[in-house]
C-alpha cells in the first residue's frame, strides 16, 4: 500500500538546463500532489524526456531547484530510489529472457527476495494481462506487450511515484486505452504518476496537464482548465434553423454572459457560443431563444473541444502573446 502524504511529491522551481547543442529546457516550474496523474504533453523534441530525466537525477539542472520526495534526485540513496518506478521511452528489458525472468531480474535489482518477487509477479502479470506470455521471450513479445512488461517491471517494487516516458508511443489506440486504464487504477491505489506523451488527446486521462513547447512549459492546468484557457471560456454547441441564424447570432452576442459566438465550420446552422460557465448558461440561453424567436435548437449541448484543437489554440495564443 502506498503511503499517502499531503506535501507535493515533486517540486520544480524555475529549472533550466541547456545542452551543448543549445537545446534543453528553461523556466520549468510545477509540482505534483500525491495520488495524481500529471501528463506532460508536447511535440517530439519539446523537452519532455529531459524533464523526466531531471526528476530521476540522470540530469542535473544548470539552475533552479528540483525536489522529489523533498530531496534533489542526484542525492538519492537506496531508500529514496525504491520509492520510484521508471518506465523509459524504449524497451530496455532483455530479449533472451522470458517475461517472468525479466521481472525477476528487475525485482532482484531492487533487492526483493525471491518470495516477494514471486507473489508480486503473479499479481502484476494479471494486472497487465501478460499471464499467458509468462514464459515468452522478450524478443517474441509484441510492442504492446513490451510496454506492459515495462509497466509491470516499474511497478514490481510497489513505488510511490511512477515516471513513465511516453509509455503509449507507437501502440494502437485500443492498447493505449488499456495502458491508461492501468494508470488510472494505479492512481486509485494512491500512486502518483508523471507521464509524458505526444498524443494530445491523452490529456483527458490526466488530473493535471503540463503543455510543453520548445523546452518551455506553456501551461499547467487540469484538462478542463486547459480547455478554458485555450477557448477563452466554456463552449455551448447549438444547431438552429438557417433562416434565423444571423438574427440569433446578433441576439446572443448582445447578451452580457456570452463572450463570443462563432459559426461551426462545415455545419449548416451550427454555432459555438463561448460562455464563462456552460452548465449555468445553457438552460438560460435555450429559454431566451424560445421566448425571443419561438424556436427550439435541434442541438443544444455543452461542447468539449478535442485536445488537439485545445493544444493548437493554446500554442496560437502563446505565439500571439509573444
Amino acid at each position, binding site marked *: 500500500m502506498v503511503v499517502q502524504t499531503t506535501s507535493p511529491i515533486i517540486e520544480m522551481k524555475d529549472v533550466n538546463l541547456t*545542452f*551543448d547543442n543549445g537545446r534543453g529546457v528553461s523556466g520549468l516550474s510545477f509540482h505534483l500532489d500525491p495520488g495524481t496523474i500529471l501528463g506532460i504533453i508536447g511535440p517530439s523534441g519539446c523537452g519532455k524526456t529531459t524533464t523526466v*530525466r531531471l526528476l*530521476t*537525477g*540522470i*540530469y*542535473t539542472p544548470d539552475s533552479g531547484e528540483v525536489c522529489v520526495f523533498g530531496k534533489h534526485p542526484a542525492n538519492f540513496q*537506496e531508500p529514496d*530510489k*525504491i520509492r*520510484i518506478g*521508471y518506465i*523509459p521511452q*524504449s524497451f*530496455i528489458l*532483455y530479449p*533472451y*529472457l522470458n517475461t517472468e*525472468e525479466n521481472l*525477476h*531480474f*528487475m*525485482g*532482484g*535489482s*531492487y*533487492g*526483493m*527476495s525471491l518470495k516477494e518477487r514471486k507473489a508480486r509477479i503473479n499479481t502484476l502479470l494479471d494486472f497487465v494481462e501478460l499471464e499467458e506470455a509468462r514464459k515468452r*521471450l522478450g524478443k517474441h513479445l509484441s510492442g504492446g506487450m513490451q510496454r506492459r512488461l515495462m509497466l509491470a517491471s516499474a511497478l514490481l517494487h510497489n513505488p510511490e511515484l511512477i515516471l513513465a516516458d511516453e509509455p503509449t508511443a507507437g501502440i494502437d489506440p485500443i492498447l493505449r486505452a488499456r495502458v491508461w486504464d492501468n494508470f488510472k487504477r494505479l492512481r486509485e491505489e494512491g500512486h502518483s504518476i508523471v507521464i509524458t506523451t505526444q498524443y494530445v488527446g491523452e490529456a483527458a486521462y490526466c488530473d493535471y496537464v503540463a503543455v510543453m513547447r520548445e523546452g518551455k512549459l506553456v501551461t499547467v492546468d487540469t484538462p478542463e482548465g486547459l480547455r478554458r484557457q485555450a477557448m477563452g471560456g466554456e463552449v455551448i454547441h447549438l444547431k438552429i434553423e438557417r433562416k434565423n441564424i444571423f438574427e440569433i447570432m446578433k441576439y446572443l452576442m448582445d447578451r452580457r454572459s456570452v463572450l463570443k459566438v462563432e459559426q461551426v465550420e462545415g455545419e449548416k446552422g451550427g454555432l459555438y457560443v463561448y460562455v464563462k460557465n456552460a452548465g449555468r448558461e445553457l438552460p438560460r440561453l435555450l429559454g431566451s431563444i424560445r421566448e425571443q424567436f419561438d424556436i427550439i435548437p435541434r442541438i443544444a449541448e455543452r461542447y468539449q473541444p478535442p485536445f488537439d484543437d485545445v493544444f493548437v489554440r493554446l500554442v496560437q495564443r502563446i505565439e500571439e502573446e509573444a
Partner: protein
Amino acid sequence: MRAWLTRTLSFFLKEIHEIRRQPKLILSLIAGPFFVLALFGATFESSRPSFRTVLVWPEEGVPGVQQGPIEFLIQRNFDLVAVVPDRDEAMQMLEEGDVDVVQVIPSDLIAKVERGERPEIEVVSHAVDPTAESWIQSLMFNQVNILNRLLLLERTGQAQEQAVTIKVEMRDAQNTLSELEVNLTPERKEQAESSIQTLQNALTLLIALLPPVPEEEGDMSARVDTLRSETMLILSDLIRLQEMIESGTIETETERLSSINERLSGLESTIDIFINLPPEAIVAPIQPSYLNVRGQPFSLVVYYAPGVLALLIQHLAITLGAMALVREKLMGSFEMFRIAPVKIPHLIIGKTFAYSVYVFVASAALAFLLRLLNVPFASDMLLFFLLIFLLTLASLGIGFLISAVSGSDSQAIQLTMLVLLLSIFFSGFFLPLSGFRELAMPVTLILPLTHGLRGMQELMLVGRPPDPSVWIGLILIAVGSYSLVLFLLHRSFKKVIS
C-alpha cells in the same frame, strides 16, 4: 547484505539465462577450436614449406658427376618438378610462377674442384616471404654440405685404395734398400732407382688424394695430418737417396739408408691405420648425440593443444566481457541502473561469475575433447582449475575494459579481434617470445594468453606447477583491468547523457 547479494545474484542469473538461450554461441566456441585442432592434426604434414624446383643440368653432362644422384639429393630438400638444359628456360619458368626455385649445376663442377677452385651451384628464387627465403637458404646450405661431403668421401676412398697399392710398393722399396745396405752392385743400383721412382710417384699421388681435414682438433684429422707429413718427409728422403745413388756416394751414407728404411717402416704402420679408418670418420669426424630427457617429443597437435585451450578461454572471456557492458549501454539499461538502487560492483561481480561458469564449462568440455586427440591432462587438477579461473578473470577484465571504452558493439568486436591478433603474434602461441626485442615485452606481458599459455604448457605437457610469474602476471592483469573498468564505469554512470 541480503539485498546486496540479491542484486548481484539477479545479474548473475540474468546472464546465465541469456547465454543458455544462445546454445549455438556456446557450441561454436567449444566445438570450433576443437575441430580446427582436429583438422590441423589430421592434415598437417610438415612445418617445412615445399618449394617447386627446376634443375638446370647441362646437355653435355657434368664430368665426374652423375645426374641421378644429384636429382636424388635435390629431392631430399626440394620438390624437383623439372630438369631442363637451358638456364633461360628455367628462369622463364620462375618468372611465370611455374616453379619457386632454380638450381644451376655448372658443367665444370668437378674440374674446378680438381683445380682447387670453389665452383658454385647457382640458386635463384622469387620469394617474397622472408621465412620462405630463409628456408630456401637453409635447405640449399644443407644440400651443398651433403654434396661436399659426398665428394670428400669419394676422394678419401680413392686415397685409401691408393694407400693399399703404396704399401706393396713400399715393401719392394724397403727390400731394395736393405739389399743396397749389404751389397751395392750396378744391377741393384738400377733396380733401386726404379723402385724409388715408383714409390715417389705413388706417394705424390697419395698426398694429392689425401682429403683436407676439418680444422677442429680430433684424433682422425691428426692421423691424416701425420700421414701427410710423414709421406712428405719420405718423399724428400727418396729424392736425397736418388741423388746419392746418382752421385755414387751411397756407400758412405749407409746410416742415412737405414734411417730412410726405418722411416718407411713407420710410414707403413701409419698407412695401415689410414687404410683401416672408416672414410666417414675422416671426412666428418664429429657427429651429434641428442637425447630428450622427456622421452618422445609430443606431436605438433598435442604441443599446440594447451595453447588452443588457453586461447579459447581468453577469447571466450574477452568476447563475453566486451559485449556485456556495451550491449547494456546501447540498450539503455545503464539509465535504468542509475535510477534503480544498483551499483557497479553488483553488475560486474554478477557478470563475472556468470561468464566464469560458461567459460569453465566450455574449457572442461574442450579439455575432455582434447583427450580424444591424446592430449595429456594436467597432473594437478586443482592447479589446472585455478589457472583456468585466473586466466578467465584476467581475460574478462580485458573484455570489460574493451566494453567500457567502446561506443558501439562493432567497435567492441573490432577491439576484441585486435586483442586476438595481438595474442596470436605476441603471446608465444606461434612465434617464440625470445625472438622479439625488449620493446615488445610490455605488449606480451599485458596479454593474459602469454601467462595462461605458459601455465597450461607447464601443467599439461611438462607436468610441473606453473612458474610463480604465471600466477603473478594473471593476477596483475586482473587487478589492473578491473580497477580501470570500475573507474571508467563509475565515471560513465555519473556522466550526463547528452
